[in-house]
């Protein structure tokens, strides 16, 4: 069995038809992890006993001839910002080094209810803050395509595991591009659903108005299968939307002929690598050949997206991360005498440099005297960015852009310059601010063989259209 190309459907069919068992497949993946993950570092925690129990349950169903759930026996990995009952969850931070959650994230619960086997928890930037996975407090992740390069971030472990065949699919989270950018860097598919499409219950909060859970997979069809499983209203998250979930998989085959696809010049300006540009332009031509009408659109406020994003996201983060106080869970500094000393010392020891930087920036932007100039200003520009997309989506059904201005950079290349790292998110942050869905799919390689990602953005709650476009484009390349 070729684990590098194994998809959800193939795995489930092989199990259903007795060519393998869920237990054997699970063991096979653990051997693969043993063999490959030492050099990559995608996993932070393995939960083998739990996984084998789950797989045994699937194999019982097969033996009894009972109907199998849609993800029966499919080995998956979960980004370590989603809580899993009884399985250590760190958010990539030392402050949660020994945290064993007493409950499970809704998205994970839904995957498991559909038969998926959770192999372990994926490495990520601390509290999902980063674009290279170098902010993990435990270890960096190496890009499977070139071990000297970053896998992207913050869902770097989730992307690298799919790319190295140590999981068939994974869950990641996206607050400013953290699913799509690592998907692009590692050459896999990454889908960020509409804000509210997937419950955030059990996702350790970074920026609550921007956080999304979504899948990373080898194929668009697998992404559709994963989304169909995790999407839908959840009473435990009042921001999860009460909007019907279509059958994304069934809709993939619908022809894309006649769809209007927008191309925004603001996403092809200075700073875009020429090989990325050529590759993305080639993909746009391919969509035209498939019968799409290509229409130029303008998103005039794009240059304001990064400052807006880093003000809104850090302000929300500074508030969300106030809960880490060394009282109910997490690290508590030793030898402290007063309560305030306990808070300050525990947080200083527990958080890494980037997390502290963002807490400081967010606290500053919310503090008296600066609130109007920074936080409120950013919230207003968020409205302007949203209007840009509302205008554009009157003319077009989807918008295509590069996912990232460059291919994967070297480990250490940007880690000393926070601003340079923030600018790597230029093409992804706006979709988070606006709440629209986006997918990144591989569209080529540069001359060093590094993957390039094509991003397709859609209207709110219209994941079907971007999945159809992505699926048709993917099929046209094979």
């Amino acid at each position, binding site marked *: 069995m070729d684990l590098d190309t194994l998809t959800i459907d193939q795995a489930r069919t092989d199990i259903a038809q007795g060519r393998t068992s869920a237990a054997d497949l699970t063991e096979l993946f653990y051997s693969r992890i043993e063999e490959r993950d030492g050099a990559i570092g995608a996993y932070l925690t393995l939960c083998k006993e739990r996984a084998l129990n789950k797989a045994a349950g699937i194999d019982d169903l097969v033996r009894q001839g009972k109907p199998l759930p849609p993800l029966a026996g499919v080995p998956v990995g979960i980004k370590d910002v989603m809580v899993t009952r009884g399985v250590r969850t760190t958010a990539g931070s030392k402050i949660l080094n020994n*945290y064993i959650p*007493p*409950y499970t994230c809704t998205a994970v619960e839904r995957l498991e209810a559909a038969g998926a086997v959770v192999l372990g928890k994926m490495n990520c930037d601390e509290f999902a803050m980063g674009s290279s996975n170098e902010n993990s407090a435990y270890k960096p992740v190496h890009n499977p395509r070139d071990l000297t390069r970053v896998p992207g971030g913050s869902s770097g472990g989730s992307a690298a595991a799919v790319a190295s065949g140590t999981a068939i699919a994974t869950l990641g989270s996206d607050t400013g591009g953290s699913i799509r950018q690592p998907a692009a860097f590692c050459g896999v598919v990454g889908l960020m659903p509409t*804000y*509210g499409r997937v419950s955030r219950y059990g996702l350790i909060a970074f920026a609550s*108005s921007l956080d999304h859970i979504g899948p990373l997979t080898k194929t668009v069809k697998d992404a559709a299968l994963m989304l169909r499983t995790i999407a839908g209203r959840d*009473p435990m998250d*009042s*921001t999860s*939307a*009460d*909007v019907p979930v279509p059958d994304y998989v069934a809709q993939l085959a619908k022809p894309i002929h006649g769809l209007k696809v927008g191309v925004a010049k603001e996403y092809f300006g200075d700073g875009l690598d020429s090989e990325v540009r050529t590759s993305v332009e080639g993909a746009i031509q391919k969509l035209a050949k498939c019968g799409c009408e290509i229409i130029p659109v303008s998103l005039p*406020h794009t240059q*304001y997206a*990064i*400052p*807006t994003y*880093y003000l809104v996201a850090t302000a929300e983060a*500074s508030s969300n991360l*106030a809960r880490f106080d*060394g*009282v*109910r869970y*997490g690290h508590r500094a030793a030898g*402290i*005498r*007063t*309560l305030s*000393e*306990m808070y*300050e010392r525990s*947080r*200083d020891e527990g*958080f890494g*440099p980037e997390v*502290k*930087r963002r*807490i*400081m*920036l967010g*606290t*500053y932007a919310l*503090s008296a005297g600066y609130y109007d*100039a*920074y936080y409120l*200003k950013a*919230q*207003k*520009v*968020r*409205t*302007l960015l*949203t209007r840009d997309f509302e205008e554009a989506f009157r003319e077009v059904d989807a918008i295509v852009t590069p996912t990232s201005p460059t291919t994967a950079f070297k480990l250490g290349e940007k880690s000393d310059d*926070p*601003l340079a790292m*923030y600018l790597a998110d230029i093409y992804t942050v706006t979709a988070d601010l*606006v*709440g629209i869905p986006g997918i990144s799919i591989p569209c080529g390689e540069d001359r060093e063989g590094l993957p390039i990602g094509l991003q397709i953005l859609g209207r*709110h*709650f219209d994941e079907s259209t971007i999945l159809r476009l992505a699926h048709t484009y993917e099929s046209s390349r094979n």
Partner: protein
Amino acid sequence: MKVTEKDVLYVAGLANLELTEGEQARMVRDLNSILEYMDRLNTLDTTDVPAMAQTSDRFGLDQSKQGTERFSYTYREDIHNGLRPSLPHDEALANAPETDGTFFTVPKVIERA
């Protein structure tokens, strides 16, 4: 330089962070470089633009309703029986750095003079 060392200490206090001296100097440098970039927002006139705190009050809701009524899908009837049980006491305490078996314990808040 917009942000001074004094500002950094003040904000660190608000954020309950104790920064080492090395961290303070680095923070002054980083915050200034980042905020300088943020200043490009001030070239935009946003006088009549409403602030946006979240996306869900613009999309996916019944647009004919006003105010909190637009979020009425999150309402439910009161439940008198069959509420989800709370987290068991021992599980709620299990991750705490320090407890006395019943409560979370912390250093004394008020010291005797």
